[in-house]
């Protein structure tokens, strides 16, 4: 996993609530055995629709940040959703809120979930819509998202998730450091 500290990059707006993981990557693309190569399937059934921000063959002009609505990533637990987003080039998702399993899966793949209030997301979206070349700066250590004009918004993130993302911590290694206590639990 690539550690996440700060990111300055273009953002693309996906103006929808409750975007489910069946849209992020439809189930017919879940038959592989690898985590890579899924970018072509990202939003496969939406990318063919006129006006969709991630058009087939395009690369959202190198956008690394997706800005979207409430409850992003609801539905299936498929980790293929963050794998596809990361494979496409996204490093952070700014949303009004996230579904639980998606948020966990994203964090484990170096994809930063940034939850911000609706009014703040709307302000960010207005800036991007006014100028698609807008560069957002996301600073994880200081937990801030900054617009080019210097307007900054703080965001909350669980301290352990932040630690894992910034350090690239191996969660399994951390769990296995409790091997003796796991054995003790099993003997109870």
């Amino acid at each position, binding site marked *: 996993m690539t550690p996440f500290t700060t990111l300055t990059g273009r953002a693309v707006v996906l*103006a*929808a*609530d*409750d975007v*489910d993981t*069946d*849209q992020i990557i*439809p*189930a*017919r693309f*879940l*038959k*592989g*055995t*690898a*985590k890579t190569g899924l970018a072509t399937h990202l939003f496969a*059934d939406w990318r063919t629709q006129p006006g969709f921000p991630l058009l087939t063959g395009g690369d959202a002009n190198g956008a690394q940040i997706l800005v979207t609505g*409430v*409850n992003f990533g*609801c*539905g*299936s*637990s*498929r*980790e293929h959703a963050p794998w596809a987003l990361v494979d496409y080039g996204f490093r952070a998702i700014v949303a009004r*809120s996230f*579904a*639980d*399993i998606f948020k*966990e*899966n994203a964090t*484990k*793949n170096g994809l930063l979930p940034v939850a911000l209030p*609706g009014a703040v997301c709307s302000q960010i979206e207005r800036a991007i819509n006014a100028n698609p070349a807008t560069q957002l700066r996301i600073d994880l250590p200081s937990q801030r998202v900054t617009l080019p004009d210097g307007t900054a918004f703080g965001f909350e993130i*669980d*301290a*352990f998730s932040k630690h894992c993302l910034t350090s690239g911590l191996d*969660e*399994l290694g*951390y*769990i*296995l450091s*409790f*091997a003796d*206590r*796991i054995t003790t*639990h*099993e003997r109870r």
Partner: protein
Amino acid sequence: MKRTLFDKIWDAHVVAEEPGRPAVLYVDLHLVHEVTSPQAFAGLGQRGLPVRRPDRTVATMDHSIPTTALVVVDDAARTQLRTLAANCAKHSITLHDLKSEQQGIVHVIGPELGVTQPGMTIVCGDSHTSTHGAFGALAFGIGTSEVEHVLASQCLLQRKPKTLEVRFEGTLSAGASAKDLVLAMIAELGVGGATGHVIEYTGPAIRALDMEGRMTVCNMSIEAGARAGMIAPDETTFAYLAGRPHVPQGAEWAKAVATWCELRSDDGAQFDRTLVIDASQIEPMITFGTNPGMGIPISARVPSPDDVDPAHRAGLAKALRYMGLPPGEPLLGRPIDVVFIGSCTNARLTDMRAAASVMRGHKVAAGVRVLVVPGSKAVKRQAEAEGLDQVFRDAGAEWRDPGCSMCIAMNGDAIEPGQYAVSTSNRNFEGRQGRGGRTFLASPLTAAAAAITGRITDVRTLLGGAQ
């Protein structure tokens, strides 16, 4: 301190918890299927780690398998199935492959085999793992990275979720079922309304449900965004489990039941939230939109974007465009193309019986395709022993082999673009049952009614005619 059912199970499984860090939570049972496990096994291989507890791991093939005698849908699915078989062989994990007499949908066979038991922590790389909470277990879906963690350590890192009590008062009326209870709840909470929470279902309408109905309710907890759903075990639970292959036997059984009887929320235990729903007011429910929260009583009209909170207007309009439904009109009487009776939500024996009770002596409406897909080989055997398969076949429905089938449309069972399906499954997301397909979620009774009329139908008009 007074504790909830959730608290009791959580507390009993915390192996370690450092300040400011999530708990290391022990997992009693890890269920595995072909779709979300290959990358996890590969990760183990890269680290040179064994599976810590193959005896606490059970695998099945369900998502991408054919439900007829035909071949696997494509090479990718075939490779994935072979990969699961090879991984299970390598790590000495019990696998219910297509040859196994116990094979079926992972959330159907766990309870059937008695590997699902009260008080357990149960995980699977599948969001509908919440199903197993019907037995008073803490059961939830995880991603593939976490599947790898559990394979290697039998543990997970977990932040303690909040608790939500959903209490169903009263008694369900004729024609309304467990599916209608949970669809009504999701319509009230919204598709993200229970995010961050574990739901405990309580109240007389829950107590009155059989285990199959309780599994249907817990199964769809995730559709309100909940981490898990659970129901305290009682005599109904113990009667279901008694004598199953993997439950304690003899004197050990009585001891286990005595322990399980403690698995209930203490009187006066505090939940973070409580929602009370009057079950007696619940009609048969149906969804009209593109997430499971977009549900209405079957006699109601599709809402209009003009009549809803502005925050939901665009989403509703988009959903109705996809569904091709005019706002403000009733759903009753709308023609449909496909009926799917199956999935981890509604493919158990009582679901088969419910559907057969409506279809017995009738023919499937002209032009309608009806798939009946039992949840497991055991369900299939029992249904056939009761002659239910013949009811379906005589009606003109397809009686299939067990699997996830048209719920997720990975195996070739799919609806066509633009078609309408009434489905007993759990998700009506765009394209979920086939690219461009449009899904109405409903109960087995309502699905069976649509099968014989070819239209969205209030099953109560077919039940003895009294209503």
